[in-house]
């Protein structure tokens, strides 16, 4: 069967020969215009005067637009309708697009932009978390608070207590292919958009809105992205809208791609967070109560910040059963780029908060942090399966549906839409949430599939953790300048969109009369291998090899109303939708062939490239021809929706996730106490993909996710100056991991076990969870720094050499 085979990426050969086509590689249509934005040079204030005469007369310029020249507000927001494509008079961040230029070449457009003369009237910008708190500048009316038990009481009466704070920086996606879009006018005012986007339907929706077209007037096609990582979930809207508007105005094709520096200056990044914590625990390190205050710096517009901040709260427990917990979440509005989706979507930040607590608790008690982590783990799956109390129910399990129609603010296409209760009317209540009350997350979801005990045991053994810990202690004792450190940290990540209605997918499958198959679904390909995995599913349904399947570009005209390829959901949702479509066709074929050969449809088998009907063996092509001649429909859509979800985001109660994906990583580092420089010496990873659809692609996600996660907590530092100008706006100043930064020794293994939930071939989502394995590197650095003295290092992220040296100085001064 095709599934579970370690096949290469379907486009691998195109990649290595340079033949894989990205949006900017599409042959530029005749008379195409090239667009560039003119950007604000202040972080907050108003435009006092703007003179674009020189821009208009610059060589090659065909058109210049300010906000009030546009056909609408051209809103780019995926949530609150608060992102006009061009600023208008009010400026919200340094880098905000103020005007739009169309010219006959890319260079001409970029050069023309520089001729603008704009005078800004600046006001004090709100840049930092503290600025925003002082000014009460926030989204939503106040902090969101979820709690379980009485955390304050539990902490105050606990035998031991700690409190502290960790800051964690944002992160630039640094997709190698920058944001790009191309719009081509069609007959009758329709428009075709090629976009590098994770969310073609959202582009379609926003372009339609901007041009006052019905959605059927806009077609969006995405063959592939040169990396997405969340940065192309909503951040491509502005380019697509700009191209569409110019195309509609001029009747000419229009293309826009951000120069790398512009991409940094304009687009959102991962949210930086500060998390303050207080925890009470017993002598074994078991946490009895914990309080978190999470401060998220959301930037100037709402974008996807509410669900990001929600997901940070949803991962404040990570792998740990916390009997009493209070999580307070502040979503702060600042005059900076609007922070957006990035692999993990708030999960990494929430998880880093509790991992920091575990590390701090262990340091306080002088015990091995792994022992503390284990002591706090949820109970293993087999221990909680039987019996248990009733499912936790929402206070309003069947809340009446709001039928008042779409509000102006609503963008139900995206995760930015945040209704309070997220559930389909009449949706069945979760039936698998039976478990003892002690085994629920802080938001009341039963944890029934916890496998980290066994995984940790195996990783501890494979990585030789205990012995290496001793070896490292001995090595450190004789090495005054260099110190090593090691840490093993777990990941438990919730899988599903927390906006329940997004957990749906469609597919379109055609079987041609020669037996070749074209497959389409709503997911987008950004390098993760989704197309190959789903093709393997389709091939398996027909008993074929994947070469029989042609994977075509994502196209809103083929599959409508798609969700973003995000939240790790791509293969779970689209794999199931494709399976449904294939099975429909297969059943029709089986029925027809059974009639022809006078046998039962149930006995027709599709295997090894053949169709077995009674005693006859047909090639799949012959079978397809027979069905065609028998006037059987060989085309079908397929549809899937994730069952059993129900979630109240205001109360913080319900079952937002279909299941959890698990992993664990053990990282060893060496640190130089003279400069704070460090290296990762070794990493061992064990990760859970359920029954892998393609182990090679899954291992690729794990290795890549780990290194990207390590980048987040080590070298990737975003620096804004006091004027609110991002100073790290190119790879010369913003340092993602390079080749030699990967661990010298790097072992990755897949946990062998099926998903307990009925997912596509019992596999598990893999896009985001491995990112958080990188947290082990930060904890290993903390461990190495601890060797210099008795005080807790209080290491913030990213732990640049400068931060590491300063932590070493703190640890020493504390002696």
């Amino acid at each position, binding site marked *: 069967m095709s599934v579970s085979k370690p096949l290469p990426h379907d486009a691998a050969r195109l990649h290595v020969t340079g033949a*894989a086509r990205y949006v900017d590689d599409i042959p530029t249509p005749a008379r195409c215009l090239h667009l560039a934005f003119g950007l604000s040079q202040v972080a907050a204030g108003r435009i006092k005067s703007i003179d674009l005469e020189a821009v208009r007369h610059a060589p090659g310029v065909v058109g210049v637009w300010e906000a009030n020249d546009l056909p609408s507000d051209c809103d780019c927001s995926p949530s609150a309708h608060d992102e006009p494509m061009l600023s208008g008079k009010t400026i919200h961040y340094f880098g905000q697009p103020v005007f739009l230029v169309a010219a006959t070449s890319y260079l001409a457009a970029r050069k023309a932009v520089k001729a603008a003369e704009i005078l800004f009237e600046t006001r004090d910008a709100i840049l930092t978390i503290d600025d925003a708190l002082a000014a009460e500048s926030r989204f939503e009316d106040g902090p969101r608070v979820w709690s379980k038990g009485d955390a304050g009481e539990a902490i105050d009466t606990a035998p031991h207590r700690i409190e502290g704070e960790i800051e964690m920086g944002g992160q630039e996606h640094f997709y190698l292919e920058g944001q790009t879009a191309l719009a081509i006018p069609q007959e009758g005012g329709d428009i075709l958009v090629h976009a590098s986007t994770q969310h073609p339907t959202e582009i379609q929706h926003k372009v339609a809105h901007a041009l006052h077209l019905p959605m059927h007037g806009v077609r969006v096609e995405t063959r592939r992205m040169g990396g997405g990582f969340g940065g192309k979930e909503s951040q491509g809207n502005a380019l697509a809208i700009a191209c569409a508007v110019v195309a509609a105005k001029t009747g000419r094709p229009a293309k826009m791609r951000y120069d790398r520096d512009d991409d940094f200056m304009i687009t959102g990044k991962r949210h930086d967070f500060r998390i303050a914590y207080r925890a009470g625990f017993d002598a074994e390190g078991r946490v009895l109560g914990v309080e978190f205050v999470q401060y998220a710096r959301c930037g100037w517009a709402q974008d996807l910040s509410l669900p990001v901040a929600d997901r940070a709260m949803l991962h404040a427990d990570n792998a740990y059963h916390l009997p009493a917990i209070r999580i307070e979440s502040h979503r702060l509005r600042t005059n900076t780029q609007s922070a957006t989706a990035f692999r993990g979507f708030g999960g990494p930040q929430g998880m880093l908060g509790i991992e920091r607590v575990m590390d701090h608790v262990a340091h306080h008690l002088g015990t091995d942090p792994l022992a503390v982590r284990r002591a706090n783990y949820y109970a293993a799956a087999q221990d909680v399966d039987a019996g248990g109390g009733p499912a936790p129910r929402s206070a309003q399990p069947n809340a009446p549906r709001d039928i008042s129609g779409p509000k102006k603010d609503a963008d139900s296409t995206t995760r930015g839409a945040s209704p309070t209760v997220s559930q389909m009317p009449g949706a069945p209540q979760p039936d698998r949430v039976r478990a003892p009350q002690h085994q629920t997350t802080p938001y009341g979801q039963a944890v029934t599939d916890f496998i980290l005990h066994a995984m940790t045991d195996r990783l501890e053994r494979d990585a030789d953790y205990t012995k290496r810990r001793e070896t490292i202690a001995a090595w450190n004792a004789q090495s005054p300048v260099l110190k090593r450190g090691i840490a093993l940290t777990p990941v438990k990540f919730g899988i599903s969109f927390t906006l329940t209605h997004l957990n749906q997918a469609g597919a379109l499958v055609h079987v041609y009369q020669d037996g070749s198959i074209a497959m389409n679904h709503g997911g987008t390909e950004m390098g993760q291998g989704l197309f190959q995995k789903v093709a393997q599913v389709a091939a398996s349904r027909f008993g074929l090899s994947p070469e029989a399947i042609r994977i075509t570009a994502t196209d809103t005209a083929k599959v409508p109303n798609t969700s973003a390829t995000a939240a790790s959901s791509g293969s779970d949702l689209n794999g199931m939708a494709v399976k449904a479509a294939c099975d429909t066709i297969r059943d029709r074929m089986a029925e027809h062939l059974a009639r022809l050969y006078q046998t039962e449809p149930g006995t027709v088998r599709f295997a090894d490239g053949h169709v077995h009907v009674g005693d006859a063996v047909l090639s799949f092509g012959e079978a397809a021809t027979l069905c065609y001649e028998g006037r059987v429909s060989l085309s079908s859509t397929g549809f899937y929706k994730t069952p059993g979800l129900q979630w109240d985001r205001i109360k913080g109660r319900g079952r937002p996730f279909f299941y959890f994906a698990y992993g664990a990583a053990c990282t060893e580092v060496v640190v130089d106490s003279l400069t704070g420089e460090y290296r990762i010496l070794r990493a061992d990873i064990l990760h859970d993909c359920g029954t892998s659809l393609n182990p090679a692609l899954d291992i690729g996600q794990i290795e890549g996710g780990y290194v990207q996660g390590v980048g987040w907590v080590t070298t990737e530092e975003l620096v804004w100056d006091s004027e609110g100008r991002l100073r790290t706006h190119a*790879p010369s100043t913003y340092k993602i991991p390079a080749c030699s930064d990967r661990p*010298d020794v790097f072992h990755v293994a897949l946990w062998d076990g099926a998903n307990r939930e009925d997912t596509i071939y019992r596999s598990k989502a893999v896009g985001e969870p491995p990112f958080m394995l990188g947290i082990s590197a930060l904890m290993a650095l903390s461990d190495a720094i601890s060797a210099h003295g008795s005080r807790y290092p209080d290491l913030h992220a990213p732990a640049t050499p400068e931060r590491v040296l300063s932590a070493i100085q703190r640890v020493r001064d504390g002696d």
Partner: protein
Amino acid sequence: MAQLLRRIEGATLEQGQFWYSGRFFTMDITFLLNGESVSLRDVAPTVTLLDWLREERGLTGTKEGCNEGDCGACTVMVADVEGAKALNACILFLPQLHGKAVRTVEGLSGPDGGLHPVQSAMVDHHGSQCGFCTPGFVVSMAVAHLNGDTAHDDALAGNLCRCTGYAPIIRAAQAAEQAPVPDWLEPAKGFRMPQQPAPLDMAPDSADALADALLRTPDATLIAGATDVGLWVTKGLRDLGPVLFLGRCTDLQQIEETEDGLRIGAAVTMDRMLLAMRDRHPSYAEMIRRYGSAQVRAAATIGGNVANGSPIGDNPPALIALDARLHLRCGQDRRVMAIEDFFIAYGQQDRAPGEFVEAITIPVQKDRLRVYKLSKRFDQDISAVCGAFSITVEDDIVTAARIAFGGMAGIPKRASHVERALVGKPWSDATLASTQDAWEEDFAPMTDMRASAGYRLDSARNMLRRYFLEDRGEAVSVLEVTP
């Protein structure tokens, strides 16, 4: 009239040409592209190879990732009589290719479509995910493969990948090591241009010719590797005015042993400088390895790194610590100065109009040099602090000290007070401690996105300590620790 001028400028801007002293500057150039001869007339001197490949030739396999030479997505193979190198096409101007052979990712596969061994290995080892960086990686890998270079981390330090975490790419590179170079690439080894390339006005072919040209056009921008000037064009969007390309001045590319020491021509590229330093001053060579990627080292020149006067250039501190001399030339006049005297203030060097750096000499000496480059990332990162130390100790007494830093002031600068606090003193912990205050007399560094002033001072101080400990045989480098 204004309208007419605008139209003329319009044409120049559209085509990347420029208008200067009443005439257009363009060039006629010839090079090989994927094995076929290409002759271009009236080429504007600052059109980049990347833009030309993608926009004029429709060869879109070569990608633009950053347009500043930091990501490697645009890597191409460029061969000349010295062999094949990987270069960043985004900051490579077409005239720099005159008389050379270029191979893009499209030219790596065989005429029948057969894959190059590194391409097959990348498929087999799952080395591509989104695929956007892949052409650049594949070209870098093919160049290393052609040259028998198996130091893969170094060969690929200038290629960024955001998807894979690099592990499968390195597995692919290792798997392809033993495969023979495909027939169709063999000519790149013994490179021959079919005909002698024609001379170019704006590309003098000797130091003498350069001196003359610069006297005639003293405001010309000199372009050697274009790793810095390239960004003036791609990021600053500047029209450079008159330019002079140095790539054909072979006499500026020589390294010779002379009575005064090692004389290094200003146009010696950093990859050759690395080789020259490897045995003489290995710590300097190690710094050069990290200073820039293979693509940058193959283009950047020692003269350029000194002459641009950057306070964070990594060569000046090392050269100052080695007591190097700078040879300047204007027409037939030459002068020699201690290299530290060249740097007057931020953005200001002791170079007259029409004058250029001709060579650098490094006196013969016992190797006491250690260069410590401190940055957020080890490879291909600009230093927060770069410290160079050459301290002579006889009978446990410091008899001489030359210490210089980049990143600590507006210019590359000697730590004179620290040096004075050391010389004549015992080589000891106590002496090190006594230098504590001297550092602040020497330096008042700034805070920026790379580091804070405090960290710069602390780490600079600690680098002296590192030198001391290293001298005593202590382990002080995380790069030398093995798992």
